[in-house]
């Protein structure tokens, strides 16, 4: 697989603070790669080094084969960027903003096609400041796309959006992948990472503590599939004690955790053999569980570790 980004032992210090502590990873062509972690973990610092907006303290980083320390103009021509808290000229219209970026890149794209792709052609003559949060992000993505880059950096593209706008942005990102773009995403929303990414790196306090495909992360750190029997009784508890890894019995019923889905399915069938009166739910492990397992906490809506 072709490496689009190659990062080796990357370190970034801000005076006495260590923001990035010697991380290494690669990003492959055509994938959605996510850097996931709470606020202050070093996500944006890493992205901004790759975008040539910051100088690394040490280590190396190559983007599309070019050195971020020496070949920034070559990199900048070939990447598309939507920075964190994306903003642009507020009193220019959507179209004017996109055209400005096109002029800077010296390209003459089919702006109508770009805006239609993102569903904002109808809003082309509206001022940026008058748009909703979700629309603004779509403008940001269209500005990143206008130069037809091979690699897109989307730094927390859905932070602060309502669930509806977040879902819409996800669809946009999925379409970009289908167009063959490589996407480097940062996020503190586990659901987002799980839904979008091919591979994800969990970064905490400047260190990458896990890097796998999302499925591998979940099966490795997700803690197994849970089967919950809301009206479970002693019989169910007994059954789970035999079959499951762990059993918890509380006011929500009896919950057994199984290593694989097959084991969970078998347990489910056994529960129904006892009686078809039981109310059974299967809870798949998620990136939330991965994160809880790895970091020992969860990330709230604003990205803070709790």
């Amino acid at each position: 697989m072709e490496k689009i980004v190659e990062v080796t032992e990357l370190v970034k210090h801000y005076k006495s603070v260590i923001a990035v502590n010697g991380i290494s990873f690669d990003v492959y062509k055509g994938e959605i790669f996510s850097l996931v972690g709470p606020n202050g973990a070093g996500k944006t610092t890493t992205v901004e080094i790759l975008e040539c907006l910051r100088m690394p303290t040490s280590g190396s980083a190559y983007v599309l084969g070019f050195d971020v320390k020496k070949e920034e103009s070559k990199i900048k021509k070939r990447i598309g960027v939507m920075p964190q808290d994306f903003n642009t000229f507020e009193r220019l219209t959507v179209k004017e903003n996109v055209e400005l970026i096109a002029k800077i890149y010296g390209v003459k794209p089919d702006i109508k096609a770009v805006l239609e792709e993102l569903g904002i052609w109808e809003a082309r003559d509206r001022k940026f400041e008058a748009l909703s949060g979700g629309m603004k992000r779509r403008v940001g993505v269209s500005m990143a796309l206008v130069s037809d880059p091979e690699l897109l950096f989307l730094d927390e593209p859905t932070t602060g959006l309502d669930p509806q706008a977040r879902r819409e942005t996800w669809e946009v990102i999925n379409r970009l992948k289908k167009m063959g773009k490589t996407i480097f995403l940062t996020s503190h929303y586990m659901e987002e990472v799980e839904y979008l990414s091919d591979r994800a790196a969990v970064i905490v306090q400047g260190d990458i503590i896990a890097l796998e495909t999302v499925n591998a992360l979940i099966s490795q750190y997700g803690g197994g599939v849970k089967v919950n029997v809301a009206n479970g009784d002693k019989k169910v508890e007994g059954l789970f004690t035999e079959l499951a890894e762990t059993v918890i019995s509380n006011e929500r019923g009896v919950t057994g955790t199984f290593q694989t889905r097959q084991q969970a399915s078998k347990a489910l069938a056994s529960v129904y053999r006892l009686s078809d009166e039981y109310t059974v739910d299967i809870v798949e492990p998620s990136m939330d569980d991965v994160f809880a397992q790895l970091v020992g906490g969860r990330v709230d809506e604003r990205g803070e570790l709790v």
Partner: protein
Amino acid sequence: MKRVYAIFTALLKSWLRSKIGIFFSFLFPVMLLIIFSTIFGGAGDTRYTLFVQNFDVENGEPTGLSQGFVDALEATDIFAIQYLDTDVDVSTYVKENPSFNFSYRILVIPKGFEEHAVNKSLSVRMDVTLDTLLLFQEQYAQYMDEADLQQIIEGQTILQQMKTTLPTDLSELVLLTDRGDTAAPAMTSVIYGVVNAFSNTLIGTEDVVAITGEPLEQKELRVVDYYLPGFIAAFIMTNGIIGANTTISEYRRDGQVKRLAATPLPKSSWVLGNILQQAVLAFILTGIMIILGWIIFGVRAFPDIYAILLIFVGAVAFCSVGMVLGGVIKDVEAASGAGNAIAFPMMFLSGAFWPIEMMPEYLQTVAKFLPLHYFHEGLRQLMIFDNPEKSVTAFVILGVFAVVFIAVAFKVTRWKEL
């Protein structure tokens, strides 16, 4: 260059669409113009204010002659006459009514001005008659008979006796002026000229001195014109150091800078685009101000091509300073504070609004280190005195200033965090 132009037009469009921004961008200079023109310009009246206290009154009315004299002064069109009542104590009045746009000059007409003047005139006429009789006597005595000669001598004696009953002292006018009033001697001589013409009229001979108004070959300027170059210079300076500076730090705070830094846009295009946009803005606003000044105050000192060029060089120079401040100071509030801290002292110390000679000597030295000083001096030479050769210093200093600060702005504008 295409990229500079792209940034320039984006910034200009952005500014043109900010209704509040436009409102305040216009309000500030227009307010300044109105304030300064009203305070210093006396609404376009270029006459000297002269206070007259006339003690020569009869039945509560000024005597015909004293009023005639004041009217004659006013007719010169040099003085704007204001009257003080006779019961006013002059020194108390001046203390209680301090003035900052003129120096007090008070002409006191004494009691008996008319009577003295008439008597004096009579006495002078008698002298003339006596002299005539004497001449007659000396040259034509031999052709006259004794009786006629005797009558002439009797007439002379009667005239001489009558003359002794008339007062011989002059009617004395008093002009009170401030000791530091440099215009006072000139005004005294104008009043003296009027007195002269007035006495001659009274005596009835032809005027020895005539006071007539003759226009001297010169620009017709008003007081407000004198302040206009200082005002333009000060406005362009504040626009650059405060305006450009705050704009640039807001763009950085709000993320537009980061967005552009991630594109292939060179840093220099961003800096130049901003300087150009701010300079053009200052330039347009200056034009509008001059037009408003013309409509409201009848300003006549229109900039010529050199003045326009100097205004543009100045705008670029001060906008570069703004770019440097906005580049060095990260916080928007701190940047605007620093802009104020530099712009306002410079505005007042440079002598933009008053002659530099009014300031203590050490402050005059300070002024000579301020670019604004050369800016408004150069503009004044061009707009008021038509001395393009004397504006060379201003062009050189502001030009060098612009180049140096553009270079520093390139240096300090962060496109990449270290």
